[in-house]
């Protein structure tokens, strides 16, 4: 028997099953997607080598470009606005003791556990033209003339679908930041108050720096959700009206399974994976550097 701390071959046996599943279902498919992205293939007949053709075509492909642009808009709704809302709440609440936090936390986190299908269906109702809550509310406050079929509107659908993402993620950011704030020593706040700092100064000087890691984590996770999002969009606007709300994942699905552009679908999927990687690594870099 070897001494504690010595290298152990048995470790490979322990990680083997996890890697078997991971390689078979994640790593090999990603590599295969990369391979297919260099081909012209309709999914049925033999494929042809196309080099970087599929990637170059993306640059003047209206649908793909719209999908990528929409993904960036969704980052605002899924990531930036929820993080901003979370920071606002963290700043206001600072360290004041909160009773019944469990209840608030449970409520704020609820959207996180629902299936995208359920979420899409809920919001179809919320936005519905005929008596849905949004339009009913507008009528109630005397703005009835603004009523619209939000998900069917060329002008509003993108923002209506984006707002669903805000609803899903804001509570997650708030709970994450509140948890971070509660670890900040009370003396820091006491000191700031003695120095006569107001709430805003207190936030900039104490709260925000203390939860910078939480902010980075929230940004990374929500950016990933925004970039891979399929379920809520497919089940609310389905990319419409027209192509106003299509996102890369929907376009990958369309091309790979419906329109026989499997090579192009793969190129788009790889492009999105790379963009996601660059964005998340950038966020981590920015927040990594110590004060």
């Amino acid at each position, binding site marked *: *028997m070897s001494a*504690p*701390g*010595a*290298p*152990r*071959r048995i*470790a490979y046996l322990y*990680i083997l099953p*996890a*890697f078997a*599943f991971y390689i*078979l*279902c*994640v*790593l090999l*498919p*990603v590599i295969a*997607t990369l391979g*297919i992205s260099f081909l012209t293939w309709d999914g049925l007949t033999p494929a042809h080598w196309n080099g970087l053709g599929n990637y170059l075509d993306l640059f003047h492909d209206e649908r793909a470009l719209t999908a990528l642009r929409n993904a960036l808009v969704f980052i605002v709704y899924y990531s930036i606005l929820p993080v901003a809302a979370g920071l606002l*709440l963290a700043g*206001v609440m600072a360290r*004041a003791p*909160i009773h019944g936090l469990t209840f*608030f*936390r449970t*409520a*704020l*986190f*609820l959207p996180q556990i*629902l*299936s*995208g*299908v*359920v979420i899409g*269906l*809920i*919001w179809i*109702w919320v936005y*519905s033209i005929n008596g849905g*809550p949004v339009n*009913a509310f507008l009528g109630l406050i005397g703005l009835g003339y603004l009523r619209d079929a939000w998900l069917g509107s060329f002008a509003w659908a993108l923002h209506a679908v984006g707002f669903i993402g805000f*609803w899903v993620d804001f509570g997650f950011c708030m709970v994450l930041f509140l948890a*971070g704030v509660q670890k900040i020593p*009370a003396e820091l706040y006491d000191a700031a108050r003695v120095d006569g700092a107001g709430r805003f100064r207190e936030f900039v000087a104490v709260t925000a720096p203390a939860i910078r890691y*939480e902010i980075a*984590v929230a940004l990374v*996770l929500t950016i990933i959700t925004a970039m*891979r999002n*399929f379920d809520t969009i*497919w089940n609310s606007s389905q990319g419409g009206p027209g192509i106003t709300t299509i996102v*890369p*994942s929907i376009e*990958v*699905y369309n091309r790979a*399974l419906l329109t026989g552009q*499997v090579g192009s679908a793969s190129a788009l*999927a790889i492009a*999105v*994976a790379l963009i996601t990687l660059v964005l998340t690594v950038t966020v981590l870099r920015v927040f990594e550097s110590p004060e």
Partner: protein
Amino acid sequence: MKYSRFERSTNYIILGFFALFALAPVVGIFFISLRGPGIIGGGIDFSAGIHPENLVQAWDDGDFFHSIRASTLVTLTVVPIATFVSVLSGYAFATMHFRGSRLLLLLIIFGLMVPYESTIVPLYYGELSIGVADTLPGLIVPMIGIHMALGTFWMRAAFSTFPAELIDAARVDGASSWVTLWRVAVPALRAPILTLIILIFVYTWNNFLYALILVSSQDTRTAPLTLSQFQGQYVQNYTLTAAGAIIVALPVVVLYVVFQREFVRGTLTGVIK
């Protein structure tokens, strides 16, 4: 230092506002599912009474029996296997030294960042070509695969908090790594393991994209997939589609309410490690 009554009450008002904003759409759809069957439009209107039997009608019309059964089979297979395998790999990464461990860990954690859409093309065509498309195993295996990154990451973090001296002591006493894992480490880490179980359960039950591309028949369609098609059929019938949504969401909502502490705390500490 004391905080003023004003500060406290504004805190509650703000928290309450956001909590209400998170809850209202869900509570609203629940109310909609109980309306009189004849009521059209989006109003919450109980003038025709309360009709819990809508759930039964949605259950029958949407054929949720088969899809809830499929979802249950998939979830109850994925959760134990994915958890077990994650416990093993997390244990190795946290407590053993071996060549290439850093690189292998990075490789598997990379899976946390992979967008699902970059796996679906080969999964779809691969499963078609080997004849496992539209079977439950053909859905179960990829669903286990996508949880390996989270599971390994999670269990490694959990085992890292376990005192190394205890593991070394067991080893010096002659216990094998297997015995140490199950007799010493796992009993002490029931809380994080329970959290992982809940996370994998929720993600597996809710998964839609893999079900959409990999399964389609009556016996393999999962509950979210059936709900999506059901809502496509009854576009304007909010009462019935809301009832369908309640059927599909109920298991995870119940699980969440019972284990909300584990779920929320787990998610938070998990992402912070």
